[in-house]
C-alpha cells in the first residue's frame, strides 16, 4: 500500500525530472534549428536561380573545357548547378523573323533556373529546342512543331576591323559577293610575319568553268603565298583569266578577312519543338537549344557566360568569385547582385527572427524550470527540518539536495538533448526536406546547462529551508 508521503516523493521526483526534461528538449531543439537555419533557408533561396556569373575576360575565349577547372574552386556540396550559355541570333527565314537563341546544357538548366515552367519537356535529343512562350504564341508554335533555323555568321565587335585580325599565326576568314550575287569564301592562315602562309577558296557559287576554278587553280592560289594583306588586284596579284569578277571577290574577301570561325557559311538546321517555356521574364523571348546543336550551327565551342547557382553565404560566395577570377587568365566571376543582395538581406532577417524566438522561448522555459524546481524543493522543508532535528549538518543537507538536483539535471539533460535533436530533425525534414546537420556539441551542452539550471534553482530554496528552525517545521503547518 502506497502511503501518501511515498507517493508524494516519487511524483515529486518525476515532476522535477519532467520539468528539466522539457527545458532541455526545448534548448536542444531550438538551438540546433537556429544553428542550421541559415544553411537550410539559404538553400531555399537557390530557387531564385543563379547567383554567380562566370564571364570571359576582355579578349579571351571561354570554352566548355575550361569549366571543369573553374568549378574546382567551389566545393561539390555547395555547387547546385553550372549552366553554360552561348547567345546568337538565329533567323527563321520562312517567317521573316529573327530571334535570340541560347545554346545551353539542359541537364543543368533546371538547377540554375528552377522557376522555369516547361509545357512538354526539356529537349533530350539532338535537333530539339525549347521555345519561349512569347515566340511560340507569336509564331504559332506548339510542342512537336518543326522549324528551320539559320545561323548567319557576323563579324564580332572585337574583330570588326580586319586590320586588327592580321596577327602572326592568325586564322582568318572572309567573304564577298562575287559573280551573280553568289558569295565567295576564303580562309587564310598567316605565318609568324603575318604574311599569308596558306589559303583556301570556296567558290562553289561561281560559274564552274570560270570563277569556280579559283579554288583549284594552282597558279592563281600560289601568287598569294608570302604576301601581306591588304592586296590590290592588278598590283600585287593577278586575276584568274576569264573570271575577273570572281577574282575581285576573292581579293575583297581576303582584305576583309577577320578572325576565322570554324565555318564561314550560314548553317540551316531543322528543329523540333520539345517544350514551351513560361517564366514571365525575358526568357520567353528566347529559343533554347543544346550546346552541341549550337556548335553544329555556329562551328564554335565558344561560350558567352556560365551561370552558377552556389549554396553559400554572401562572403563565402565573394571568396569563390575572387578565387575563380584570380586562378584563371581567361575568365572572371561576378555575383548577381539582384539575387545575392536580396538573399543576404532577407536571410539576415530570418536568421535574426529565429534567433530572437529561440532566445525568448529559452529564457521563459528556463525560468519555468527554475520555478518548478524551487517549488519542489520548498515542499521538502519539513523533511529537511526533520533531518536537522535528527542531527544532520547544514552542509550535508545542502550537498545531498544539490546532488539530487544535479543528478536530475543530468538525467533530464540527456533525455532532453536526445528528444530535442529528434524534434529538430523532424522540423528539418518536414520544412526543408533535408536532414539537419548533427551538432556533436549539442548533447554535452544541453546536459551541462540542465545541470547548471537545476543546481542554481535548488540553491535558493535549500538555503531558506536550511535556515529554518527545525522545531518550527516539525511543529505543524
Amino acid at each position, binding site marked *: 500500500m502506497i502511503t501518501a508521503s511515498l507517493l508524494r516523493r516519487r511524483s515529486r521526483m518525476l515532476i522535477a525530472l*519532467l520539468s528539466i526534461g*522539457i527545458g532541455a528538449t526545448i534548448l536542444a531543439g531550438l538551438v540546433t534549428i537556429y544553428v542550421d537555419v541559415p544553411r537550410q533557408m539559404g538553400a531555399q533561396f537557390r530557387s531564385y536561380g543563379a547567383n554567380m556569373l562566370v564571364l570571359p575576360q576582355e579578349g579571351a575565349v571561354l570554352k566548355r573545357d575550361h569549366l571543369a577547372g573553374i568549378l574546382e574552386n567551389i566545393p561539390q556540396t555547395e555547387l547546385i548547378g553550372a549552366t553554360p550559355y552561348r547567345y546568337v541570333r538565329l533567323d527563321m527565314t520562312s517567317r521573316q523573323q529573327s530571334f535570340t537563341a541560347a545554346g545551353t546544357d539542359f541537364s543543368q538548366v533546371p538547377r540554375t533556373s528552377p*522557376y522555369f515552367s516547361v509545357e512538354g519537356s526539356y529537349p533530350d535529343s539532338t535537333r530539339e529546342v525549347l521555345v519561349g512562350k512569347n515566340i511560340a504564341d507569336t509564331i504559332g508554335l506548339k510542342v512537336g512543331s518543326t522549324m528551320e533555323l539559320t545561323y548567319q555568321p557576323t563579324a564580332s565587335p572585337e574583330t570588326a576591323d580586319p586590320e586588327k585580325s592580321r596577327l602572326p599565326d592568325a586564322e582568318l576568314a572572309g567573304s564577298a559577293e562575287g559573280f551573280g550575287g553568289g558569295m565567295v569564301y576564303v580562309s587564310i592562315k598567316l605565318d609568324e610575319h603575318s604574311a599569308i602562309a596558306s589559303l583556301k577558296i570556296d567558290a562553289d557559287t561561281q560559274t564552274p568553268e570560270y570563277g569556280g576554278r579559283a579554288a583549284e587553280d594552282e597558279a592563281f592560289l600560289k601568287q598569294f603565298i608570302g604576301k601581306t594583306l591588304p592586296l590590290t588586284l592588278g598590283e600585287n596579284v593577278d586575276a584568274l583569266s576569264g573570271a575577273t569578277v570572281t577574282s575581285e571577290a576573292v581579293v575583297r574577301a581576303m582584305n576583309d578577312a577577320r578572325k576565322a570561325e570554324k565555318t564561314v557559311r550560314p548553317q540551316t538546321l531543322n528543329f523540333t519543338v520539345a517544350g514551351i517555356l513560361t517564366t514571365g521574364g525575358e526568357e520567353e523571348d528566347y529559343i533554347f537549344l543544346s550546346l552541341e546543336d549550337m556548335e553544329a550551327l555556329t562551328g564554335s565551342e565558344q561560350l558567352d557566360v556560365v551561370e552558377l547557382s552556389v549554396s553559400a553565404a554572401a562572403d563565402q560566395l565573394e571568396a569563390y568569385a575572387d578565387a575563380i577570377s584570380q586562378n584563371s587568365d581567361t575568365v572572371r566571376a561576378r555575383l548577381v547582385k539582384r539575387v545575392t543582395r536580396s538573399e543576404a538581406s532577407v536571410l539576415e532577417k530570418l536568421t535574426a527572427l529565429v534567433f530572437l524566438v529561440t532566445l525568448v522561448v529559452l529564457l521563459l522555459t528556463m525560468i*519555468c524550470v527554475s520555478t518548478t524546481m524551487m517549488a519542489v524543493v520548498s*515542499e521538502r522543508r519539513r523533511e529537511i527540518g526533520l533531518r536537522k532535528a535528527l542531527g544532520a549538518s547544514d552542509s550535508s543537507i545542502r550537498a545531498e539536495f544539490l546532488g539530487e538536483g544535479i543528478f536530475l539535471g543530468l538525467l533530464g539533460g540527456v533525455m532532453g538533448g536526445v528528444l530535442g535533436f529528434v524534434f529538430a530533425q523532424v522540423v528539418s525534414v518536414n520544412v526543408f526536406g533535408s536532414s539537419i546537420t548533427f551538432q556533436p556539441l549539442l548533447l554535452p551542452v544541453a546536459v551541462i546547462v540542465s545541470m547548471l539550471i537545476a543546481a542554481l534553482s535548488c540553491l535558493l530554496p535549500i538555503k531558506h529551508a536550511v535556515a529554518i528552525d527545525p522545531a518550527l517545521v516539525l511543529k505543524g503547518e
Partner: protein
Amino acid sequence: MLFRMIRGVLFHQKGKMLLIALTIALGASLATGMLNVVLGVEEKVNKELKNYGANIVVKPKDSSLLSDIYDVGEGAELNTAYLREDELGKLKTIFWAFNIVDFTPFLDTRVQVSDNVTVSLTGTWFNHHLDLPTGESLDAGIVGMRSWWDVTEGRWLDEKDENASEEIMAGTVLAEQNGWHAGDVIRLKGNNGEKDVTLVGIYDAGGDEDEQLYATLDLVQALTDRENKVASIEVSALTTPDNELARRAARNPAALSSRDYETWYCTAYVSAICYQIQEVITGSVATAVRKVAESEGTILDKTKLLMILITALSLIGSALGISNLVTASVMERSQEIGLLKAIGARDRSITGVVMTEILITALLGFVVGYLMGFGFAQLIGQSVFGSSIDMDPKVAPIVAGLIALVTIAGSLPAIRMVLRLRPAEVLHGGH
C-alpha cells in the same frame, strides 16, 4: 464560506500561489508572443522579399516581338502596342490595392550617344509621387524596385527636381567605356530628334542595365513622340503562396465554380492580382514573374511552417510545465485536503474549492502573461523587421482557453488522486 476560503488561499498562501501565477504568466506570455509572431510573420517576410523586385509584369496584349530579320539597332520602334500611362493610378483601385506595394512603367528606345555608339535608353519612374483618389499617396519607381542598384557616382535622379526631364543615369560599364562622369552633358540622338541631357548619377546594377541609360518617362516619351504611352509595367505585390486552387484558376478562371471563383478572387494569389490588373488596365496582359513569384511562395511557406513548428514545441513545453507545477502544488496540499475530508467535506466540494482557487490564480497569470507576450511580440517585430506586429484579437481567447485546459488537466487528476487516499494516510503520513 467559500469566498473566505478562496480569499484565505490567495492572501495567506501568497508565495505558493504566486509561483503558480508566475509560471502560468510565463507560459501565457510565450503562447501569446509566439502565436502573434506566427500570424504576423508572413506579412513581414513578404515585405522583405519585395527586395527581389517585381513579381508581376504587365504588357500590352498585342505586343509583338521586337525584332525583324536584321540586327536590332536602328532605333526602329517595333512595339506597336502600348499601355496608357494615365491608367497607372488604377492599379491602386483593384480589390487587392492594399497589396500593391510598388510599381513602375517602362518605355525603351535606342539612342546614339556618340559616333557609332548606340545604347538602350529606358524611360521609367524613379520616385514618382502619386496622389490617389482614395486619399493615399505613394512614391513609386525604380528607387524602390531596384533595391540592389548601387549609385557609385553622383546621385539618384529625383523626379521632384524641376530639371528631372533633362537628366539621365548611366550604367557603370557604359560610363566607363565612354569615360563619362556625373555632371557631364551628353547628347542623345533618337529617332525623333536630339537632346542634351545631364548625367546625374552612375549606377552599378550587377547586370545588363550596366550597359544602358535610364531617364524619366517624360524624357523618353518626348524623344520618341509617344506621349502617354508605356511599353510595360512592373508591379511588386504582396501575395499569398499558390495552392491547387490558384493554379487551376491561373490556367482558366472561367472554368471555376462561382464559389471557387470568389475564394480565388478574394485571396491575394498572384494569378488573382494579375487578373484584377487586367481588369483595370486597358488592353493588358499581366503575368507572374515566375523567378520571383515562385521563390517567394516557397520561402514564405517554409518560414511559416518553421515558425509554426517552433511555436508548437514551445506551446507543448509550456503546457507540460504549467500542468506539472499545478500537479505539484496540488500534491503539496494533500494534508489540507485530507483534513477537509476528515472534517466532513464532500469530494465534490473540496474539488470545487481547490479548482476555483487555482483557476483564479491562472486568470491572474494569464492577464500578466498576455501583456508580457505583447511585449515579446513587439520586441521581435521591432528588432527583426523594424515594425510592430499587430496583436491578433483571436489569440487572447485561444491562449486563455489553452491555459484553462492545461490548468484543469494538471489539477483535476491530482485532486482526484489525493481525494482517493484515505484521510488516515494523509493526516498521519506526515509523521
